[in-house]
């Protein structure tokens, strides 16, 4: 069970054509197994963010094959892809991207509304538990814009967890945080992989952060080294 492959990238290529053809990703092949804590590092412009958007199914304009939980995403409709993202992928962004119109708790619950598997009460209970685990249950009923950067990032992590996804993808999750908060986030991630057996894929340019993860995938000029 531990070694079950949850995400598989097979010879992924991507090019931008504006104004001339630029190959951003060249023949990317790798697997992620259950419980793995991997980081993607690389210089600015090495294509690591682009790769993350492809792996997250938001960007479908590539060649090659992406298999998530044993199912290829090729030929799926926008609606089906959204459902895959909703159910199997959790997101944490560099810019915390909470919805300012809602409370922290509602922000966490939103992907759950879409999945619509649990009742609102159960969902609220789960969301509250996640916030509690992350030590920010006191902020549950504050509006998103009233929170500090570190707090926002923790709410975003709780949001990524709410639908119990297979993979959690993070784009520079500590990029906007000070060392103290960055450490908190790192430890949370570590606990997620160890205690909850989640798979984590973190894009970062923070080498110290990457070194502490279980596996480093280094991108240079669109290739894995």
């Amino acid at each position, binding site marked *: 069970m531990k070694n079950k492959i949850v995400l598989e990238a097979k010879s992924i290529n991507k090019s931008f054509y504006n104004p001339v053809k630029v190959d951003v990703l060249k023949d990317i092949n790798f697997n992620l197994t259950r419980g793995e804590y991997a980081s993607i590092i690389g210089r600015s412009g090495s294509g690591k*963010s682009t790769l993350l*958007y492809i792996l*997250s199914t*938001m*960007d479908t304009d590539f060649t090659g094959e992406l298999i998530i939980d044993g199912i290829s995403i090729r030929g799926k409709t*926008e*609606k089906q892809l*959204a*459902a*895959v*993202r*909703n*159910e199997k*992928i959790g*997101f944490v*962004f*560099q*810019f915390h*991207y*909470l*919805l*300012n*119109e*809602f409370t922290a708790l509602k922000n966490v619950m*939103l*992907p759950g*509304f*879409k*999945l*619509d598997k649990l009742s609102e009460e159960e969902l609220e209970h789960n969301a509250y538990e996640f916030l509690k685990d992350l030590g920010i249950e006191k902020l549950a009923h504050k509006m998103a814009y009233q929170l500090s950067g570190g707090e926002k990032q923790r709410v975003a992590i709780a*949001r990524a967890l709410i*639908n119990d996804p297979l993979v959690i993808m993070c*784009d520079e999750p500590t990029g906007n945080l000070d060392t103290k908060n960055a450490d908190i986030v790192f430890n949370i991630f570590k606990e997620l992989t160890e205690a909850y057996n989640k798979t984590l894929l973190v894009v970062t340019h923070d080498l110290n952060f990457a070194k502490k993860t279980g596996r480093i995938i280094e991108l240079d000029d669109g290739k894995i080294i």
Partner: protein
Amino acid sequence: MKIKHITEISGALMRARWKQTLVAIVGVTFSIAFFISLLGFMEGLNQLLDGIVLNRTPHIRLYNDILPSKKQPIDLNATYKNHHNFISSVKPTNTRKEIYNATQIINKLNKDQRVLGVSPKITAQVFYNLGNIDLNGIINGVDVDKEAELFSFNDYVVGGNLQKLKTTLNSIILGQGAANTMRAKVGDIITVTSTEGEQFSLKVVGFFKSGIAEIDKVQSYANISTTQKILGKNSNYISDIQIKLKEMSLAPTLAHEYESFFKIDAEDIQTANAQFETGSSVRSIISYAVGVTLLIVSGFGIYNILNMLIYEKMDTIAILKATGFAGTDVKKIFISISLSIGITGAITGLLFGFLLSLSIDAIPFNSPSLPTVTTYPIDYGIQYYSIAAIFALITTFLAGWFPAKKASKIDPVIIIRGK
């Protein structure tokens, strides 16, 4: 995805931009309120203007027309059966204007379920004698009660008392114009001369004002027996039977039916007054066009506001999509925003439209030709309210549809990457 959660998100988005939302709602409210009051006012005016003529006009009039017989003697002659008859300038014989068996016809009509009421009438050509001068006049002999009931006669009688026409022997209600010329007051005795040359003295018991000056100079009213006396006819003499139907649109069909059934001439209101129908419908079309324009303009307002909202909320849309909301969910969110604006605007608009109509209805409006009207006329027909509501919902839906479609197509990667 439950509707409840869609509306929760759209509600939060609207609260975030509550001022713009309010402006959009006010736009819809304004256009609906004006649509309703404009059309109600226009239709009220139409009914008033048409009423001047149509209230006093029977839906079907039965009479004997003065025409040459449709079957000429030559047609009856077998010898000329297959010949063409080109006898020109055929004159009518001395036909009686009287309707045969008028009483039986009236009884029969009263039993007809489609008929609201029947009122007999006689007209007499007279001269009003004014010293040396004779004025042309027509005295209408009417059944006072029926005339009041079916043709709102009492609305048009100013000064004096309508009921006195029944109770006072040889009384007359003079047309206002004729009365002015004769300087007649209520209680005065005037003299008229019939076409046969006989003179009658009639007591003025009131004045009649139709709203059309030409008619008021000529027409006067007396009761049937007085008019029969003026004409020198017996008490069976009836020259017209006026019929008011429950449903005016049936008039042409029923006119044909009565024509063949009673062997009599019948004229329906549509044929007699075609021009009024045309005028009313053209006025209605113009006011509908203006009203619909108002609603469409408010639709553009919603369209603009939603477009702005989408530009402002790009991040929100991107994050919703990244966390698994499909394009259709985003579309639903924005359409529910525009529909909430539409529904709220429509409900308040209907209310304000009604209040606006009430206030127009209270503005004094006195016209010398319209004695019964004291304020501006308003029609409170439910159809204006329903048309306004339905049309507002359609325009707001469309105004929401296009921005919502745009929002649903937003690529989250571009937004997130763009930061």
